[in-house]
């Protein structure tokens, strides 16, 4: 290697090209999943804090509205004790702290922002749906948008997924116990959020999980290698296999 003075700008250019080459729609999908997760966390935290704040004001009313959507729907437009009490047919006298109009106005703003967060999550989800379907129609059909997206996030891309044995796909996302010495294999991976599994009864879940994982593996291979849209055939086959489980 000759000893001319090296310039790091050549390396910067080369490395930059390498990065650009490697970035793909898989990275976009992973970031969208993280965005959805982040928003959901923010929404949960904001909701809990809002509930606590309202509980301070009207515990008798709030305690009847533990269910999240019902709480939001009920106090939206009924923020004062008088209104909420008549909405719930209870008395408005309360041991709670008497908030001012300005205090209550602030809580109304918080409700509005939480609803906005919800809307935002929805629009990210539907965009993600379009992205996954366009790029990986087979995986999209077999796994569903969110499971597909999470699998991509977990293993880095559809290429990696297509090379993965389906037994491993079945436990992806459940590897918390990886660094313990316990030999017990974790049971519940991301695919347990699959529609066919969430609704299934306990006894069948293991078997269904195996079927779903094997079709996800197949779908990933089709998306990665042949890039043909065989989603209908795959989905039909998977569903009939699941149905044939007694």
């Amino acid at each position: 290697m000759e000893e001319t003075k090296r310039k790091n700008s050549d390396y910067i250019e080369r490395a930059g090209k390498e990065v650009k080459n490697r970035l793909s729609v898989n990275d976009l999908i992973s970031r969208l999943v993280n965005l959805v997760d982040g928003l959901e966390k923010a929404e949960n935290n904001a909701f809990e804090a809002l509930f606590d704040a309202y509980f301070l004001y009207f515990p008798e009313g709030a305690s009847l509205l533990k269910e999240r959507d019902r709480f939001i729907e009920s106090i939206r437009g009924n923020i004062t004790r008088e209104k909420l009490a008549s909405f719930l047919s209870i008395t408005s006298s309360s041991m709670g702290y008497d908030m001012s109009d300005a205090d209550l106005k602030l809580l109304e703003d918080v409700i509005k922002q939480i609803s906005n967060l919800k809307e935002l999550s929805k629009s990210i989800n539907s965009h993600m749906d379009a992205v996954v379907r366009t790029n990986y129609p087979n995986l999209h059909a077999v796994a569903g948008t969110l499971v597909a997206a999470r699998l991509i996030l977990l293993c880095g891309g559809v290429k990696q997924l297509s090379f993965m044995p389906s037994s491993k796909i079945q436990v992806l996302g459940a590897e918390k116990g990886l660094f313990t010495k316990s030999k017990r294999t974790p049971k519940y991976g991301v695919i347990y959020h699959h529609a066919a599994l969430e609704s299934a009864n306990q006894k069948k879940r293991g078997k269904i999980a195996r079927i779903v994982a094997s079709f996800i593996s197949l779908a990933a291979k089709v998306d990665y290698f042949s890039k043909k849209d065989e989603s209908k055939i795959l989905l039909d086959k998977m569903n009939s296999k699941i149905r044939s489980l007694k």
Partner: protein
Amino acid sequence: MELNKVMDNVYWVGNNRRMLVSLNLVKEQSVYGERLVDVKGTQYREWIPFRSKLAAAIYKGVRGIELHSGSRVLYLGASSGTTVSHVSDIIGHNGQVYAVEIAEEMGVHLILLAKTRDNLFPIIADASRISEYKDIVPKCDFLYQDIAQKDQIGIFIENANAFLKRGGFGAIAIKSRSIDVTESPYKVIAAAKSQLQKRFIITNSVPLSPFQKDHELIFIRNG
């Protein structure tokens, strides 16, 4: 404030609660949130042992690390450039650090950092595939590796064979629980050492707790 030299461009600053710093090659730049300290008109960057294994080793008492102003370094597993930035401070404008990182998300940070430091040469490649960069990396004085991978020692030896000068030095970070999760940390380190000993002279070895959990930094000399 008082400065006590540790190695080229690296100092302890302060009297009772001492803090490790390196001479800031790029004035006013903080790379990963570390504090900037001005002493007598010169700026230094805090070198945080919880963020950098090399700093942890110095806090644990390691001296005589063979990194100098003007050194040529091959750094494997550069990540976003936390430790690399301090190596860049140490070697100064006459040195060169070739920083290899496999993950492009991390690589982006490394490349952006290189744009501010003319002695930093970023390479997005897999350290187990030397062919990807053998034409663009020269013989080096120091080989540093921190990749926490299965065959990390094999990778280290291969890179040393290809790029480390005879008589050169190196250091490798061993995660005592990454190679085999069922093996005890002590055994993992012992096995790593005996593997390294077949090829190098081990000059020092230091556990990095409490700064870095389950890690050991092993220093070697090439023949």
